[in-house]
């Protein structure tokens, strides 16, 4: 007996097939190839490639700088989103479209510009470096340029939620006796949490994979300003493809684990939504 197709939306089969095909070609095959390449190493070789003190320092820097940058982006991005949604000012539309620039700009350009601005005799560096603020060729420089890349993710995830937030919730809070600070902390921010966590996750993921800008601003000193992707490129230049793949695998697994945690956080922050 033939079964009756009870799906209301037609096209499940072709839709799903295309999705799976593309997912395979674009994501699974390259990742799988990376795994296979890494498997050409023996266990000792693998361990020797991925867990040297130099590599450990690079992982720590990659994750630490990305985390710091994601946090900074969240703070700045929230303020920017707030200003864009709540206030009217001349040039607002231009300002709004500038937000997306880091999405489009080749990141190497960003890295180069930041570097030339913040070095000792750069336009900004000549004032900042004497004050002890060194944002070129240092770890803080890496965080700084990653923050630039992360901000649009926060702005673009928070902005629509903030726009949709009815003003009557704030009015209700005020008429119930809450001051501005209490209203922001107890009413507005909790409504934004899911969007903030999503934006944070996107910014964080983006920073983990960043190479182009960091390579210019960091100086790439071992144990100091060398991030994991640079390590991979180094290995590639030495034609140690297996070792490069091994480091990539470690980076991939760590990032994946992080994203799972953030995903769970995101779901948790949405628990009250019905």
């Amino acid at each position, binding site marked *: 007996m033939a079964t009756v197709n009870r799906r209301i939306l037609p096209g499940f089969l072709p839709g799903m097939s295309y999705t799976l095909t593309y997912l395979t070609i674009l994501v699974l095959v390259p990742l799988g190839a990376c795994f296979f390449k890494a498997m050409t190493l023996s266990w000792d070789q693998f361990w020797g490639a991925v867990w040297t003190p130099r590599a450990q320092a690079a992982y720590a820097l990659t994750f630490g700088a990305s985390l710091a940058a994601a946090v900074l982006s969240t703070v700045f991005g929230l303020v920017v989103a707030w200003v864009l949604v709540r206030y009217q000012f001349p040039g607002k539309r231009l300002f709004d479209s500038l937000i997306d620039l880091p999405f489009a700009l080749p990141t190497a350009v960003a890295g180069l510009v930041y570097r030339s601005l913040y070095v000792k005799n750069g336009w900004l560096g000549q004032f900042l470096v004497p004050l002890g603020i060194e944002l070129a060729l240092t770890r803080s420089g890496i965080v700084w340029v990653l923050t630039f890349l992360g901000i649009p993710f926060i702005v673009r995830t928070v902005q629509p939620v903030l726009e949709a937030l*009815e003003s*009557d*919730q704030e*009015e*209700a*809070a*005020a*008429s*119930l*006796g*809450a*001051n501005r600070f*209490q209203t922001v902390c*107890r*009413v507005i921010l*909790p*409504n934004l*949490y899911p969007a903030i966590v999503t934006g944070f996750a996107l910014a964080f993921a983006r920073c983990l994979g960043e190479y182009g800008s960091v390579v210019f601003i960091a100086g790439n000193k071992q144990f100091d300003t060398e991030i994991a992707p640079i390590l991979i490129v180094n290995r590639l230049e030495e034609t140690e493809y297996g070792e490069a793949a091994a480091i990539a695998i470690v980076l991939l697994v760590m990032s994946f684990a992080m994203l799972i945690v953030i995903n769970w956080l995101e779901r948790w922050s949405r628990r*009250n*939504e*019905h």
Partner: protein
Amino acid sequence: MSITIKSVTKRFGKFTALDNVSLEVPSGSLVALLGSSGSGKTTLLRIIAGLEVPDVGSVLIQDEDITHASAQQRNVGFVFQHYALFRHMTVYENVAFGLRVRGRPDGQVCERVTELLKLIRLEGLDQRYPGQLSGGQRQRVALARALAAQPRLLLLDEPFGALDAKVRQELRTWLRRLHDEIHVTSLFVTHDQEEAFAVADKVVVMQGGKIEQMGAPHEVFDHPASPFVMDFLGNVNVFQGRVQSGRLLLGNIDLAAHDAHPQEEERPATFYVRPHELDIKRSANGTPSLKANVLHLNPAGPVTRVQLLAVDFGLTVHVELSHERRAELGLSPGDTVYVAPRKLRVFLPEPEYTI
């Protein structure tokens, strides 16, 4: 506590939402602000709550001028049309909000919230989120939240506007009973005249940013001060006629008017008759009446609604008859009958002068 509004004007750009409005709400009363959308009723409510600032005029609670106090300082409970509950908080925390921001100790908060949840009959649902409640329940939570910090006034903006008819009826009765228990001076906005009449001690009818009339519900209903109020408070038939020497003239109807226009000179006038103030007769029989054809009969409901066409005027007339009266007349569409007013109201347009 009483509310006093003194000559308040509020403009939004070129639109005048409130035009020199003055109003006195006695302490402990329940007053309805009745008007169509754009009449300024919600703006007035928001000005009292401190959510809008008047351009001109002042607002007093009891004898204290609060015109320039912020919403936060006023201690006025406000219930929003769409509830404005905090979606990320449980029912308990929503109700507790006003107490928490005032830094009340937990024990006191718990006691007050429990008391209020009992009052709104939602005792078991304190750990639910607003998204898990029905519209009527949400509205009650919004009310409890507004009452938690013992506000000086309670303001309600279209409190039952978003609910279905049956729940609306229930909540209406419940609000009236609640008010009789707690006696907080309350002001609510509605566009539903039935709701205003059913609940309020006093009705304020607003139009175009002005107060058209205020008074007890029966006063306003029986003695509307203007054509607008007459029209707004339910179906009405409008006829264009004349007045002369203390008589109302409409077709072959000639009625003595007790108060209107004793002058010799004839003037056009507009007559208003409610559908239940008209009777239908089979023959004119000398009574002043309008000849009409029955167009349509609608016997569903407590009365029969009859739609007729007044032949001489080309006007549609609505009449409400008891079912008994209809049966007695044996009406059917197409019949020619005579419509006689039991009562006519006349509003004379303001005399115009030419130079």
